[in-house]
């Protein structure tokens, strides 16, 4: 059996991102329960404060890496003809990139 190039790093990315997202979920849930921000002003102040925004930024990076590896694995399992496979991979990559760009305004929000 020949190893697929990058298979080990994809495996590792999937597990490391999963662990970080799990930790962040507990952290964010705990912080939210402690603060219970209600109303627009409290919600915005809570969500965009550095203790939420910076780990949240890393969470987004982990999430998109995780989604890419996962969707890539699904496509590699089910789509076999090479042109179709490359097209599908390109489409998913473009859709993920576009979605990730949607987060940019939050990154630079005051």
């Amino acid at each position, binding site marked *: 059996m020949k190893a697929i190039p990058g298979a080990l790093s994809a495996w590792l990315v999937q*597990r490391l991102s*999963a*662990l970080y997202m*799990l930790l962040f*979920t507990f952290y964010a849930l705990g912080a939210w329960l402690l603060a219970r921000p209600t*109303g*627009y*002003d409290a*919600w*915005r102040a809570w*969500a*965009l404060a550095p203790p939420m925004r910076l780990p949240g930024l890393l969470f987004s990076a982990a*999430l998109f890496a995780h*989604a890419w590896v*996962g*969707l890539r694995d*699904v496509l590699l399992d089910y789509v076999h003809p090479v042109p179709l496979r490359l097209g599908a991979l390109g489409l998913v990559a473009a*859709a*993920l990139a576009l*979605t990730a760009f*949607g*987060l940019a*305004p*939050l990154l630079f*929000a005051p």
Partner: protein
Amino acid sequence: MAGHGNGRRPRFLNLFRLRFPVGAVCSFAHRVSGVVLALFLPVTIGLLRRSLDGSSGYDAVAGMMSSVAGKLLATLFLWALAHHTLAGVRHLLMDVELGSSLGAARRSAWSVSVLGAALAVLAFGALW
């Protein structure tokens, strides 16, 4: 397949006669829930942005979340999140050889699938 020992392969697979062990169901649901979460990604990011974009946007998101369709979609999202997370943790534990014997793997596959569904029902109740 057993009972067809004449060297001929089965000509077709009857899906209703195939047995799906609980591990297969749990694992496939992990995959399905992952795809569901990926499909929700633009929606959740859009809602997050809208909720942070002025108080009218915040109220609009709150309104969507309290509509029937919003609650049903949120339940689907929370099932996918719960199952994917629990089944993922199960995978991580198996990576370090925890619970990877057949009996333990079957039990954890049951627990994970039932707990994921139970959390979805709980979330449905809490949203309503």
